[in-house]
C-alpha cells in the first residue's frame, strides 16, 4: 500500500518559513499534483517526502509507517528530476540499471573488474539486463540503450529518467517539474504518456509543477500551494468550479478568472462601484466576485458589468473579448463562440451578466463566501437575456 500522509509539516531555514504546517493525504494509486508559483514550497515538500531533506517539525507516513529519518534509498520511492539527472558517463542501459545494481548486487559484486567474476554476479546481472530492456521497451527507448545521455534529445532523456524510476517498481513516483525543460509539443505528448503510465502501473504519482494546465489535465486531485501553505486540495473540477480561496481561483484556469472588486452593505446587498449587481452575500460580507470568461453572457439590460471593448483575441474556435469595464481595474475577459466573429468590434460597448450559480464570492480574507441572487426581477431580466443570446447562436 502506498498511501502517503503529511501531518503538519513545517520547514524553516533560519528565519524564513518555507512550509507552514502542511497536512495532506494521498491515496494509493492516485495521481496528485502539487501546484503553485515558484517559491511556494512544493519542491521542498516533495524532497522531504523523498528523504533528501528533513522537515523542521511534523511527520511523513508512507503506507502507514512513519519514515522520518529513513534514508531516501530505503523509502521505496523513485524520483524524476527536472534536469533528468542522468549519469553522463554511463550509457542509457547502465543508467537505468543503476538502482538495480545498487540494490541487487553486494558491494563486492559491484567492484569494477573483480565483481563480475564473483559467484552469483552473472545471473543477477543478466536478470537486471532483462529488466532494463523491458522498461526500455515500455518507454520506447530500446533502440537507444547503448547511447550516452549527451547524444539524446530532451524527450529521450526524459524517458530514460522515467525508465530509471520504473525499474525500481516503487510504491510511489515523485516527479519534480519533469516537463519544464521540454518544448511545448513534446510537453503535451509526454503529459499523456505520464498519465498513461500512472494508469497502467497503478502506482501513486506525486507530481510537482507550476503549470496549472499540466496539473488540470493529468491529475486525479490537485493540491494548490502558495507561500508555504496548502490552500486547497480537490479534483480539477472542484478546484475550477468551487475555489475555496481567491488565490486558487486566480491560479487555476486560463485565461484567468475575472475578479470584480465589490462592496457589501449592511443588508448584504452587493454593489459594484455603486451599481446594483442583483446579488447578495448570504454569508459573510463579500469583497470580490469571481466570474470565469465563459460564465459571462452578453445582455441588453440588467448587466453585471458594462464596458468598452479594448481588444479581441480570435483563436479560431473561440473569441476572447477584453473590455475596460467600469469599476473594474483589470480588463474583463469574456469568451464568445466562434459564431460571434465579426460581430464584435473594438470600441463597442458590451453588457455582460452571469448566473449567480456560476459566480464565486470571496470575503475580506479571500476565502470563498456564498453568493445568491438578490431579487426575482433581476433573475427574470437575466433569463430573458440568456434566451436571446441562445437564439442568436
Amino acid at each position: 500500500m502506498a498511501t502517503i500522509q503529511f501531518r503538519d509539516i513545517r520547514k524553516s531555514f533560519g528565519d524564513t518559513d518555507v512550509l507552514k504546517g502542511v497536512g495532506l493525504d494521498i491515496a494509493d494509486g492516485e495521481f496528485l499534483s502539487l501546484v503553485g508559483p515558484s517559491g511556494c514550497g512544493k519542491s521542498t515538500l516533495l524532497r522531504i517526502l523523498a528523504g533528501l531533506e528533513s522537515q523542521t517539525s511534523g511527520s511523513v507516513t508512507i503506507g502507514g509507517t512513519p519514515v522520518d529519518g529513513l534514508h531516501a534509498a530505503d523509502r521505496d520511492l523513485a524520483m524524476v528530476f527536472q534536469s533528468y539527472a542522468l549519469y553522463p558517463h554511463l550509457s542509457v542501459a547502465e543508467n537505468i540499471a543503476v538502482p538495480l545494481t545498487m540494490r541487487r548486487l553486494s558491494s563486492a559484486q559491484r567492484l569494477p573488474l573483480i565483481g563480475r567474476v564473483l559467484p552469483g554476479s552473472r545471473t543477477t546481472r543478466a536478470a537486471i539486463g532483462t529488466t532494463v530492456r523491458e522498461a526500455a521497451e515500455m518507454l520506447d527507448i530500446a533502440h537507444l540503450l547503448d547511447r550516452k545521455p549527451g547524444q539524446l534529445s530532451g524527450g529521450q532523456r526524459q524517458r530514460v529518467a522515467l525508465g530509471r524510476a520504473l525499474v525500481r517498481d516503487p510504491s510511489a513516483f515523485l516527479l519534480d517539474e519533469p516537463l519544464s525543460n521540454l518544448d511545448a509539443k513534446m510537453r503535451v505528448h509526454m503529459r499523456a504518456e505520464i498519465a498513461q503510465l500512472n494508469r497502467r502501473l497503478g502506482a501513486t504519482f506525486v507530481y510537482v509543477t507550476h503549470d496549472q494546465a499540466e496539473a488540470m489535465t493529468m491529475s486525479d486531485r490537485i493540491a494548490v500551494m502558495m507561500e508555504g501553505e496548502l490552500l486547497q486540495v480537490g479534483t480539477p473540477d472542484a478546484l475550477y468550479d468551487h475555489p475555496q480561496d481567491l488565490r486558487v481561483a486566480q491560479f487555476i484556469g486560463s485565461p484567468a478568472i475575472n475578479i470584480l472588486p465589490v462592496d457589501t452593505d449592511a443588508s448584504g446587498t452587493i454593489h459594484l462601484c455603486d451599481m446594483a449587481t442583483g446579488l447578495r452575500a448570504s454569508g459573510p460580507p463579500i469583497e470580490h466576485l469571481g466570474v470565469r470568461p465563459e460564465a459571462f453572457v452578453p445582455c441588453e439590460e440588467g448587466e453585471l458589468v458594462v464596458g468598452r471593448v479594448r481588444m479581441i483575441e480570435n483563436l479560431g474556435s473561440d473569441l476572447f473579448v477584453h473590455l475596460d469595464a467600469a469599476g473594474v481595474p483589470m480588463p474583463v475577459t469574456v469568451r464568445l463562440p466562434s459564431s460571434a466573429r465579426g460581430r464584435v468590434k473594438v470600441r463597442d460597448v458590451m453588457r455582460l451578466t452571469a448566473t449567480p450559480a456560476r459566480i464565486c464570492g470571496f470575503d475580506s480574507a479571500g476565502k470563498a463566501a456564498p453568493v445568491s441572487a438578490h431579487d426575482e426581477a433581476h433573475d427574470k431580466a437575466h433569463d430573458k437575456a440568456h434566451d436571446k443570446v441562445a437564439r442568436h447562436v
Partner: protein
Amino acid sequence: MTYRFSTRQTLAHGLLILGAIIVLLPFYVMISTSFKSPAEIATGTGGVFGSQALFPDPTCLALGGNETECLVRPVRDNYSQAFTAAPLWRYLLNGVIVTASIFVLQTLIAVPAAYALAKLKFWGRDAAFALVLFCLLIPVHAIALPLYLMLAKLGLTNSYAALILPWIVSAFGIFLMRQFFMTVPDDLIDAARMDGMGEFAIIWRVMLPTAIPALLAFAIFSVVAHWNDYFWPRIVITGDRSLFTPPLGLREFKGDLGGDVYGPMMASATIIAVPLVVAFLLAQRRFIDGITLSGMK
C-alpha cells in the same frame, strides 16, 4: 593580411629559432655526447652522433685484455656502462614506484576531501577550506628540515615510506578537485542517493568519472614534480643506494665517476630524462592543457 613570408613573420621565426637553439642546446649536447667515445669528447669532434669508430675500452685493457679484444662501439659502451656502473634499472623502478604510489595515495585522500568540501554541508566546512588554502601557501621546502627530523626520530629515513609519505596529502590536489566538483549538478547527486548510493559510492561512481580532465591535470602535475624531485630524496635517503630515485642516482653516478667519464654520464642523463620527455611529446596537448588548467585555477 599576412603573407607567408612577410618580414614580420620572418623576423618572428628568426628570433624564435635563435631561442630554440639555446633551449635545445643541452638536449643536443646530452644525446650527442652519449654517443661519443672519450677521445671524441675530449677533442670535440665526431659530428652529431660521433663517428662510432671502435675504440679500446680502458677498463678492459686494465684487466689485461689486448687491444683487439677490447674494442667497443662508443654508443653501446656508454649506455651499457650507464646501466652497469650503477643500478640504473633499479633507480628507474624506484622512480616508478615512488611516483605511482604518491599519485595513487594523493588521489585516495584528496578526492573524498574535495567532495566533502564541494558538496556536503558540515560544521566547520568553511574553516576547513580556509585551512586548505592556507596550506597551499606553505612551500614544502620550508618544512623539509623538521619533516626530516620527525622521520629520523621514527627511524623511517632510508625507506620508501620516507620518500612517499610526506607527499600523500596535496593541498593543491584538494583545491583543484574541489573547484571541479563544484561544477557537478546537485540533482545528479540527489538522484544517486535515491538510487541507493552511499556517499562513498557517489564519489567513485558519479563525481570522479565526470572529473577525469581535472584528475589528469593533477596527475601530470604530480608525476612530473615527483619524478624530477631531487631535493627531498637527497635529504631523506642517506645511505641505502637501492632506494635512489633517478635524479639521485644520476647525482651519485656523477660523484662516483669523478669528472672524466662524460659519455656514460650523458647516457644516464638521457635515460633519466627520456621517459617524461617522450610522454610529453606523445601527448603534448594534454600536458599543456593540464598545466594551464592547474595554473588558471
